[in-house]
């Protein structure tokens, strides 16, 4: 069956999906649209840091989207189909990217393939109705506006009060743990952290609650002898963050770390948000399932122009129930982009405002520091000085190699022998035989999580 607007209408789960899709049928929302041999795909910039990847098959209308929507097809699929049917011209011919090929490969293994409904039903749905723009809202009554603004101020004050009370409770909890002994806390880490995290949620400190909830996972990943000091460090940072917030409760960075982050839209409209246009490389990705049922997807970028910030972090969260979500970018992918950073003492987290292809591959910047003391962790130290509640920071290490201890623990060591850093997990054996010209990773004061490296054998992806 050929793909037509009637088919798109019939495929939509409801009229609301068509209305939502209608808002996405603008070219500005789709930094990438392409086609090849009956496959049509695109990237749609949603509210997250990473764009959603969407693909459909013209032949059988099978589709896939990386968004966490529970509607099938989602508004992104509908919008892409809609735009393609109305005007296929902007969908340029392109080589099929790996993520489309992977989807196609998984489809072949399912008997019958495809997930288009056998009998799409158009009853109660209309593209025309979805296209109709909402009527302009009536001018606001000035008194209603005043009441609305006063209510917002009151809500903000109540939120601040709730957070302050939650932080006081957190301080008391930490003091109790010190008084009764951290050994007891370590023996009941999950339960006690869960309990205080729940109190933080009640106090509108949702982000901080997530931080506390993940402490057990972080500590239990360490060898037993490292856990006491690691716990002291974690609890100390909670104290620092709470005190920083009390000193500046309106600071966006502190509110973000305790309550909630700004929306992408708010960030893009924030004139104070630092912007940087540069060439970037995708170093690697970390995906972690949290105790609160969310999956965090962290994509690390390296500034190839050598400026500051030297790194950027694209961070998204989606429900674990949404299933496995494909990566927005390929590791090693390079592009030019304007990034908008969330305001912070040490800007790192960002969203992509605009993205374009590079005219050729770019080398990594030379790792090094400006004061000549040769400390490969200078970036980490600076992050701690500006934002001492920071748990970890990305670093670009100078030339070195991997080495191992008897018993197998693997370290990174600089070529001059002056610096060694233990690794969070060992890299593949083959990589031990390579000379590393530069290594990118995340240092948390105890272990280095590898992302990527440049070596005498070329680029190495180390985030697997």
């Amino acid at each position: 069956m050929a793909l037509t607007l009637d088919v798109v209408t019939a495929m939509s789960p409801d009229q609301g999906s068509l209305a939502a899709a209608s808002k996405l049928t603008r070219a500005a929302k789709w930094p990438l649209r392409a086609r090849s041999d009956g496959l049509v795909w695109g990237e749609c910039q949603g509210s997250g840091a990473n764009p959603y990847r969407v693909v459909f098959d013209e032949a059988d209308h099978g589709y896939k989207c990386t968004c966490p929507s529970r509607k099938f097809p989602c508004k992104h699929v509908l919008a892409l189909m809609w735009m393609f049917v109305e005007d296929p011209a902007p969908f340029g011919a392109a080589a099929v990217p790996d993520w489309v090929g992977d989807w196609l490969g998984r489809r072949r293994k399912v008997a019958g393939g495809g997930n288009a409904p056998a009998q799409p039903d158009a009853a109660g749905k209309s593209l025309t109705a979805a296209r109709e723009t909402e009527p302009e809202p009536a001018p606001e009554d000035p008194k209603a506006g005043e009441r609305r603004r006063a209510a917002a101020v009151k809500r903000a004050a109540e939120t601040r009060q709730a957070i302050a009370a939650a932080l006081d409770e957190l301080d008391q909890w930490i003091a109790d743990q010190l008084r009764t002994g951290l050994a007891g806390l370590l023996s009941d880490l999950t339960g006690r952290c869960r309990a205080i995290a729940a109190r933080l949620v009640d106090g509108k400190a949702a982000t901080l609650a997530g931080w506390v909830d993940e402490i057990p996972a972080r500590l239990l990943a360490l060898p037993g002898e490292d856990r006491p000091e690691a716990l002291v460090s974690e609890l100390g940072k909670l104290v620092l963050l709470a005190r920083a917030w009390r000193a500046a409760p309106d600071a966006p960075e502190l509110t973000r770390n305790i309550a909630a982050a700004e929306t992408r839209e708010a960030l893009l409209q924030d004139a104070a948000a630092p912007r940087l246009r540069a060439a970037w490389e995708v170093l690697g990705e970390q995906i972690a399932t949290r105790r609160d049922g969310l999956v965090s997807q962290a994509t690390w970028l390296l500034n190839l122009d050598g400026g500051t910030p030297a790194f950027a972090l694209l961070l998204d969260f989606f429900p674990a129930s949404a299933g496995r979500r494909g990566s927005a970018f390929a590791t090693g992918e390079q592009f030019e982009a304007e990034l908008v950073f969330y305001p912070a003492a040490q800007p790192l987290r960002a969203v992509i405002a605009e993205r374009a292809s590079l005219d050729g591959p770019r080398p990594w910047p030379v790792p090094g520091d400006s004061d000549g003391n040769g400390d490969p962790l200078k970036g980490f130290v600076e992050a701690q000085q500006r934002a001492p509640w920071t748990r970890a920071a990305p670093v670009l290490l100078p030339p070195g190699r991997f080495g191992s201890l008897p018993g197998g623990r693997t370290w990174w060591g600089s070529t001059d022998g002056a610096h060694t850093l233990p690794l969070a997990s060992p890299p593949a054996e083959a990589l031990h035989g390579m000379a590393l010209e530069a290594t990118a990773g995340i240092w948390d004061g105890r272990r280095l999580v590898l992302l990527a490296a440049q070596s005498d054998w070329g680029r190495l992806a180390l985030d697997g």
Partner: protein
Amino acid sequence: MDESEAGIAALCGRWMVGGEAIGACPPGWRDLVEGDPAPELALLAIAGQAVQLLLRPVPPAALAQARPIPPLALPTLPEALRAPFRRLVSNRSGPGPVPILALMAARGRSAHPADWMPRAGDEGLPGLYAPWLGYQAGAAPAAEFEDLTAANWDDWLPSARVAALAGLRRRDPAAALALVEARASTEPAERRVRLVEVLQDGLSEADAAFLQTLRADRSARLRSLAARLLARLGHPAEEAEAAAELGGFFERQRAGILSRREVVAPIRLKTGAQRARRAELMGSVTLAGLAGALELSPAALVAEWDFADPQADEGLIAMAAASASDDCILALLERLLDLAQPRPAALAPLFERLGPEARRKTLPPVLAADNETFTASLACVGSAYGGVVLDALSMAPALDRLEGLASADARGERSQDMVLDTGLTNLGLLADATAARALLARFVEAGLAAADPMLAMLAFNAALEGSENP
């Protein structure tokens, strides 16, 4: 342990058991927190930062570093082909790394060590990976491209030694024989067998005297190997009794209504035990032995064989592959390919006996008879992957069959998917780059998506740059 480290340790120790730690902190720190409304929490914050910033982990012993991975004679794959290579190699239903590596080597490329490295005992790899085999086995790096001699024999790893000996055998068969004669007796039985197997390449009467000495070897496997190689050279084995017993399972009879030609046919067997015994004898008796028991020459036995019993036919093929002369091998191949319903997949053991030139000559009739998945054709080319032109591949009935399967209607049938997958993978290993590109277009036209994983080997082949196989 310096003062800060000692201070942190003291604080942590106090907090672990519970209670105030301010009395245990370094004096400078106490000054910082005095006057704070929550001095223990302030101390905790300072200690936490000190843990992260002042204490840098130090390895308790010197780090052992691996030797640098030796470079290979060919450059690695271009970056764009590394992900497709990884997918092909990791595909459990695929052909495995050896054919893919051989195809890459034919096009002048090697694997990236981060994508694939051999295990120490891996066999059948293209010779260029010998340095990595040695590296994985922890051997000291040998001089690159050094020749194997009696003097440096012990410097080589066993698998690298066999590979070097095989190369020497191709260049100088007499020198290789001399080395085997001089050093094989110092090796354990399993390695002696591998060394003597190298003599199969270019086997000639010049090898007979040495092989005769192996009839008395302490290893039964080596004695059997020597007997088979001698049989190929026309030297009879000591197997009269077994040959006679095997001969009893066959009879000469006249076949055909008009021609009444002589054929050698298996007698009808009544029990499974008889079949088992016949198969056992066919696994040990030489072709010449069976021919002699039937009062025929080996060539006449091949000419008169009646291909009526698949198990007996398989036995004949295995027997010939082990012990027949080169001429008998070619004659048997010709007969098998002339059958009304050839079974090209059964011919693989005979291909192993052919040298590169003979394989090239045999390939066209094998292709013409290949109506399955190009498995037989792939066996025929041996390790010469990626060199068959489109015209030659088009001779195979299998190509039209696969094209038919590729249509949208056939794709839904699971069993046919496996046939198509295997056939396309084999095509991807057989075709030269020009043929691979043409076949990709043809199968997309037939109904497959360009990104279909079943076309991955063809796509990889087409994208591999470098010179084609001659």
